[in-house]
């Protein structure tokens, strides 16, 4: 049992003037499940990392556990005080296998070697993953990795459990299973749980307090206000009115024959024939972790697949990598994976050199930069841009390349409402002018209606074309 108290915490990132957390005061009650919400980029992760002791505090007394700052707690006891589950499942392990990672954590806590095996077994049984004990961590799915990470926290018996958007890459059934375990830890073992999420669906049964982080400050809502907030939250609705089932007069661009993804231990796509059509804007939807990004990586020859994939009738394995990469491009989910240079101007120059420069004249590029509010940033270093600015620059760079087929993996991720409107307008105009084939994965569902003409849903390991949703 531990109460987390944050008092007068101000935190500013180096080289920024605006503090991300501003004179913040909040108390997370002991043994309760608190949900922390707020806009993306609003400082949720920063606050959790400060509480976990992963980012050094400007003032050691600003965060206390039952009145004690973390630095005053003995090193071997710190992990038993507070532990954190990360957003990106694969980045939280040091060792190779599940059992070795559990041993590593328990050794750090100076647990008697004789007691370690029993603790490991108990923790794995509590989460229900005894069968994963000797598996390689990097071969597990994101959901399994999050379960292992939670089992480690259970083994370490941490009083305060922090979770930073833990379900971002997890399919809904796994999310539910993990939530049930978390609630059990809270009610049966008296753990204090603080979970950050911007999606408020399906928490109403379990969460006691909603903490809202806005403009650097946290407001803790009462149970009644929390329930009211949950009731008012409606997830984005998918509304596609221009969508129709593919007809015979469409031209096939990419064709999968008995295409399958995944491996024997985790099948993502069961063998199926799949056609992707030229000059159309296709949206692919499906649960988190169901294999949408894996499909894109297979389409650009970065990932393994079974069966055959053809582009304009030719097996993509037999095409020259260099030529194929100019025909079928991918806008990666992580913006930094796309960039090759240091400044915005250099990055744009590279795209203009090899891209479609008859359509993307310097004037047009300048106009697009102005629309995207990037015109004043051309001399800036890319990695000092905000994540939203990076995303917009990334899209512009790939649009200028204008490959016949452009795959877009979450192109709207982390953009604010105004930016989404601008980006969708630009995408729609360019697609119509150049007759591009766009294939898009997006969890952001509003604002897509004007562009999308075909809709593929990935469900039960099968991709099927959908009809219009009124």
């Amino acid at each position, binding site marked *: 049992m531990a109460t987390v108290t944050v008092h007068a915490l101000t935190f500013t990132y180096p080289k920024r003037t605006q503090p991300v957390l501003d004179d913040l005061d909040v108390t997370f009650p002991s043994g309760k499940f608190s949900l922390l919400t707020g806009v993306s980029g609003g400082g949720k992760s920063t606050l959790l990392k400060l509480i976990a002791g992963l980012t050094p505090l400007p003032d050691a007394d600003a965060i206390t556990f039952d009145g004690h700052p973390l630095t005053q707690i003995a090193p*071997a006891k710190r992990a038993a005080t507070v532990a954190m589950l990360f957003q990106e499942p694969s*980045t939280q392990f040091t060792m190779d296998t599940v059992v070795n990672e559990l041993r590593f954590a*328990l050794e*750090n806590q100076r*647990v008697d*070697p004789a007691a370690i095996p029993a603790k490991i077994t108990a923790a794995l049984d509590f989460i229900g993953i005894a069968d994963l004990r000797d598996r390689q961590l990097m071969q597990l799915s994101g959901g399994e990795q999050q379960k292992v990470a939670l089992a480690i926290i259970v083994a370490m018996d941490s009083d305060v459990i922090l979770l930073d958007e833990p379900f971002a890459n997890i399919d809904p059934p796994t999310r539910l299973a993990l939530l049930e375990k978390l609630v059990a830890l809270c009610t049966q073992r008296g753990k204090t749980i603080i979970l950050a999420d911007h999606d408020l669906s399906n928490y109403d049964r379990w969460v006691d307090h909603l903490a809202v982080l806005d403009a650097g400050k946290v407001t803790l809502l009462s149970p009644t206000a929390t329930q009211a907030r949950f009731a008012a939250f409606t997830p984005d609705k998918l509304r596609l009115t221009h969508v129709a089932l593919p007809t015979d007069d469409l031209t096939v661009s990419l064709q999968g024959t008995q295409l399958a993804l995944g491996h024997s231990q985790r099948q993502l796509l069961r063998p199926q024939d799949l056609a992707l059509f030229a000059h159309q804007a296709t949206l692919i939807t499906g649960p988190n972790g169901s294999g949408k990004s894996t499909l894109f990586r297979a389409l650009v020859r970065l990932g393994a697949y079974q069966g055959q994939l053809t582009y304009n009738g030719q097996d993509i394995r037999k095409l020259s990598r260099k030529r194929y990469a100019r025909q079928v491009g991918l806008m990666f989910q992580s913006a930094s994976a796309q960039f*090759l240079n240091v400044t915005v101007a250099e990055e744009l120059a590279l795209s203009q050199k*090899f891209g479609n420069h008859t359509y993307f004249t310097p004037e047009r590029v300048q106009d697009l930069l102005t629309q995207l509010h990037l015109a004043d940033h051309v001399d800036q270093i890319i990695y000092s841009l905000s994540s939203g600015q990076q995303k917009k620059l990334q899209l512009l760079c790939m649009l200028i390349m204008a490959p016949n087929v452009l795959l877009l993996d979450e192109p709207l991720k982390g953009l604010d409402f105004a930016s989404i409107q601008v980006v969708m307008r630009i995408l729609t105009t360019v697609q119509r002018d150049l007759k591009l084939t766009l294939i898009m994965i997006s969890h952001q569902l509003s604002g897509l209606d004007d562009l999308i003409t075909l809709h593929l849903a990935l469900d039960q390991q099968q991709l099927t074309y959908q009809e219009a949703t009124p």
Partner: protein
Amino acid sequence: MNPSLKLALAVLIALEVSFTQVWTVNVALIAISLVLMLINHVTVKRFLWLTLVPLFFASALVWSLTLQGTASHHFLIVLFTRMFVYVYMGGLFTQTTDPLTLTRSLEQNAKLPAKFAYGFLAAFNLMPKIQAEVATIRAAALMRGQELHVWSPQLYFKVILAAMNWSDQLAAAMTSHGFVEGAPRTHAITVALRARDWWIFALSLVVIQVGLFIGLP
């Protein structure tokens, strides 16, 4: 044999071989490494790699020295065999040692600070990740019309950026699982340092000394 002691033995022998010129000892070391590798079921493919790569470099070295015409035959044979001693002993060590056991042994037996021991292990576990990252960077470049080769500085710039990011992630991962720099830890699995290990270590060194002494001109 205990991994730390095995590492020490390999390094000591390599050092001695570097400063002496007895080709018979080199040949004996090559033969012993070969036999031990065969006993430990090293794959044929791995074995061919371990042979062909040094063969190329050793031959090139000997050939260029012969053209110069100043080196004696004896010296050329010593150089040629020395190259194989390094590679075969290195191969024998890596093929018969599990990185995790070596890490535990370095921490427990050689008293290396845990930070370095686990840092080494993490770097080892990062290898497949680096390969995947390089493939992604090259694909991203091709999509922009640029071909990146192994000698392209941009490739290294991006890999270093990614590695810096990973090192932050790894530090966070270790901290969140209770690792505190310099703090004492317990050991779930102990790596034994037996008398037998010391005997093998000492005897091997003695045999080498005798061989070198007899073989010296």
